[in-house]
């Protein structure tokens, strides 16, 4: 019964989305504002429908409706309530529902926020976002229906089907130590087995972590969020209104999506660090790369779009970049969803690869086609030409080139296995090539290095034309500071390459801090404000500029964390008897004993008790452990961690025999900078996207006035 409600609501949501898309198109071609209005209503209705679907599914997970296959795969009675809830995104079918729900949520948000201001574009926004929404609802309904149930047929076989087959009765899974069996149930109990209650298999242990509660939704918000800027861009192409309107709405929405994507990436790193147990947070895994790719092009777009807003340049380029970002989102979705790439966290091979591949191909075709069509009409004609090589426009363009280069490098590394696999099948190559972390570690640092230089210099450069002399003067202080720091590092005996890396990152940091200092001290002197007031007013008056600088500072802090934890990481593995010690850096770990315990959620834990000393003084107790959820499942290694500003000590229990244990211990210097930098970056982005207290038009006039006096303005 419950599942039937879900099935009906899911189908109606599809009907509403398909109807909405059709009505929007119909309204555009017949110039019927009634049809457009109805289209809008259709998307307003599909959202509560999908919300209902998600609610039904969550309710089924919470109450143990294990006849529903999805529920039995991700939930079981002994699972804590929070995880029964978040199991919505613990598997393919459920997370696709969340995905669709977010798509619709963004569309409704855009309909509410931009309906008046972008009146001309909205019908087409509905068409492009609507097609995508309807496509995902097709997947939800006909390929990965989360309400598919187990049925016992008359011949004794069990079948999984959405709708009840003729003569079938509901079948329920029962977990034994050998595996799963299926039974017919009466009054909640299995017939013929007194007292035995059916149960689900439960969530994959790796996903039973707080990071998994928020990481996937954030990443999905980042992915789905790009539908809106993409739809605006396509709407602009369709209408030919390639002026300021689409850029204005697109930039804000891109920033929102970018923020969620960044948050998803950072939380994903944190989850990997805490749970996957290899002492790292980024492994250049294909699925990780797939979410990094749109982040790279999205970041490029957020920079180059400023050039168009300000100077009416790079119109075609910006259009191409937002299209590319969205296509990379789709690529990433295909990669994650279909198991095409060898990765630790793809979903199982699924029937989705064909419809998704077709949708990706069609979207690409439409993008390229419309781009060429409008391009040949001269619609991307720029208002100005690039002039000075050191102007801000040029430096931003170079930044885009480098981001694009990074995208190509990462894309090739990620997809080479598949591309060369096709080439091999076609007889063009003898073998399939794949790339591991060392490929990326060899190439990307150089490109990131260039980006850090540009990050320091570009915001200081003047628009239009900048003389090398003038630019040189404005970077003098950061260069002097960087030089001092580098000399200190070299004297301390740190390697040349590491010093170079730190120097480049620090240069960007110093340049940004100097800008903050200049702004605050100017206000402090001119308005006699105290430093704190001057700082907050500076933000209030030039929010975009200083929130951008804050994001840059966040990236600098992340950069320091990455360099520290990569260049100075130490690993030691030793087998110890009780009382034995292991030294790593300034730390000593003493292994005391091994004991078993049972957690509240009935998992068994094997815990090694370790005391951590630093320079002979006790600083912490660590409990590296392995969790066993049930005998048929893999253990899960949970690190014992000790975090300080300077260091993370990260101990893993990798093996034991009687009371002898093998510990693997990492010292990860500065790794916490990665998380703090991430926090700074997110705060900066929140400030940047926060809605304006004043109307857009007023702000624009002010910006223009200000710009007449401040060549280095935003």
């Amino acid at each position, binding site marked *: 019964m419950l599942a039937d409600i879900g099935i009906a609501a899911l189908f109606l949501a599809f009907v509403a989305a398909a109807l909405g898309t059709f009505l929007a198109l119909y309204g555009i071609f017949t110039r019927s504002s009634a049809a457009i209005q109805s289209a809008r209503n259709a998307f307003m209705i599909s959202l509560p429908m999908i919300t209902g679907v998600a609610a039904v599914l969550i309710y089924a997970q919470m109450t143990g409706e294990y006849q529903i296959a999805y529920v039995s795969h991700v939930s079981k009675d002994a699972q804590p309530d929070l995880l029964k809830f978040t199991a919505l995104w613990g598997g393919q079918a459920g997370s696709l529902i969340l995905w669709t729900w977010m798509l619709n949520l963004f569309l409704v948000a855009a309909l509410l926020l931009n309906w008046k201001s972008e009146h001309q574009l909205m019908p087409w926004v509905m068409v492009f976002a609507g097609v995508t929404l309807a496509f995902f609802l097709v997947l939800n309904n006909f390929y990965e229906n989360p309400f598919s149930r187990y049925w*016992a047929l008359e011949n004794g076989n069990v079948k999984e089907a959405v709708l009840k087959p003729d003569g079938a009765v509901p079948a329920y899974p029962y977990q034994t130590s050998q595996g799963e069996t299926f039974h017919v149930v009466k009054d909640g109990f299995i017939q013929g087995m007194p007292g035995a209650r059916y149960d689900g298999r439960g969530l994959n242990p790796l996903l039973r972590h707080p990071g998994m509660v928020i990481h996937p939704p954030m990443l999905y918000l980042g992915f789905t969020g790009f539908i809106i800027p993409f739809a605006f861009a396509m709407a602009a192409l369709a209408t030919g209104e390639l002026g300021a309107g689409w850029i204005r709405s697109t930039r804000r929405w891109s920033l929102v999506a970018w923020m969620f994507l960044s948050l998803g990436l950072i939380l994903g790193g944190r989850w990997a660090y805490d749970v996957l147990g290899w002492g790292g947070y980024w492994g250049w895994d294909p699925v990780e790369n797939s979410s990094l790719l749109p982040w790279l092009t999205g970041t490029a777009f957020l920079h180059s779009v400023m050039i168009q807003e300000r100077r009416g340049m790079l119109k075609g380029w910006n259009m191409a970049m937002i299209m590319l970002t969205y296509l990379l989102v789709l690529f990433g979705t295909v990669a994650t969803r279909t198991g095409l790439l060898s990765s630790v966290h793809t979903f199982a091979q699924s029937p989705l690869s064909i419809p998704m591949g077709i949708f990706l191909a069609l979207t690409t075709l439409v993008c390229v086609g419309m781009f060429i069509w409008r391009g040949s009409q001269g619609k991307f004609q720029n*208002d100005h030409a690039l002039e000075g090589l050191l102007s801000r426009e040029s430096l931003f363009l170079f930044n885009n080139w480098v981001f694009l280069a990074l995208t190509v490098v990462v894309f090739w590394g990620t997809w080479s296995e598949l591309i060369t696999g096709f080439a091999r099948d076609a007889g063009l190559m003898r073998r399939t090539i794949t790339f591991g972390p060392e490929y990326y570690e060899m190439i990307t640092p150089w490109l990131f290095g260039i980006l850090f230089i540009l990050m320091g210099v570009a915001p200081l450069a003047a628009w239009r034309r900048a003389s090398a002399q003038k630019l040189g003067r404005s970077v003098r202080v950061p260069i002097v500071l960087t030089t001092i720091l580098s000399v200190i590092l070299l004297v301390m005996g740190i390697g040349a390459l590491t010093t170079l890396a730190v120097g480049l990152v620090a240069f960007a940091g110093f340049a940004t801090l100097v800008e903050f200092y200049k702004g605050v001290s100017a206000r402090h002197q001119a308005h006699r404000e105290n430093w704190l007031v001057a700082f907050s007013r500076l933000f209030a008056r030039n929010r975009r500029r200083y929130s951008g600088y804050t994001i840059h500072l966040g990236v600098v802090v992340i950069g320091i964390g990455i360099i520290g934890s990569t260049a100075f990481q130490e690993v030691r593995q030793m087998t110890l008897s009780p009382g034995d010690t292991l030294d790593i850096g300034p730390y000593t770990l003493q292994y005391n004993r091994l004991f078993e315990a049972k957690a509240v959620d009935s998992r068994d834990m094997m815990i090694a008790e370790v005391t951590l000393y630093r320079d002979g003084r006790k600083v912490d107790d660590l409990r590296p452990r392995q969790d066993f959820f049930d005998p048929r499942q893999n253990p899960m290694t949970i690190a014992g961690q000790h975090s300080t500003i300077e260091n993370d000590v990260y101990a893993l229990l990798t093996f034991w025999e009687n009371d002898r244990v093998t510990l693997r211990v990492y010292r990860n210097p500065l790794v916490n900078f990665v998380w703090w930098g991430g926090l700074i970056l997110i705060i900066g982005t929140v400030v940047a996207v926060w809605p304006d207290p004043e109307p857009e038009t007023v702000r624009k006039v002010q910006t223009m006035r200000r710009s007449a006096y401040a060549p280095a303005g935003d």
Partner: protein
Amino acid sequence: MSEITWVKTPETAKAAGIHVKNRSKYLYGLIGIGLLAVVAFLMYNGLAAGRYYVTVSELVSDQDNIGKKVRVAGAVDGNTIVFNPETHQLTFTVVNIPSDSDEIKEAGGLGAVLHQALQDPGATRLNIVWNNAEVPDLLQHEAQAIMTGTLQEDGTFVAEEVLLKCPTRYSDEVPGQVSAQG
């Protein structure tokens, strides 16, 4: 720095793309080509880090593979997993599985392929040695191991990186029969 004095150049009349004044056009081109060259050079160098994907059978049947860094996938035989806590050496045996995705699909999915491979007494086997190893959580019977490393003269494979997947665990596609009591 007012923008009003700005005069359009003839080049801006062009349809699309990035417009640059003539005199600096070459400079932008130069920078672009420079960047391309750097990326091409880096990626060419990166090819050295590329690993060839081979099956267990392909790996052991060709003497040329000895000493070359390759990536090989196989089904883990759970009875062979041994960790030596004194030397920190992990050893186990994998069994050949097909690499072709169509072949895997026909056989009933990766889970079925792994299961069948381990039943087959005639399948090619490969002994894996992983030094300074941790014992991965997912290393168990019928897991798919994707290993990067080199084949030695003595026929063992020294792994540098081991990636594991357990497809049967959480993604059974076809449920079985209602049990007898039902």
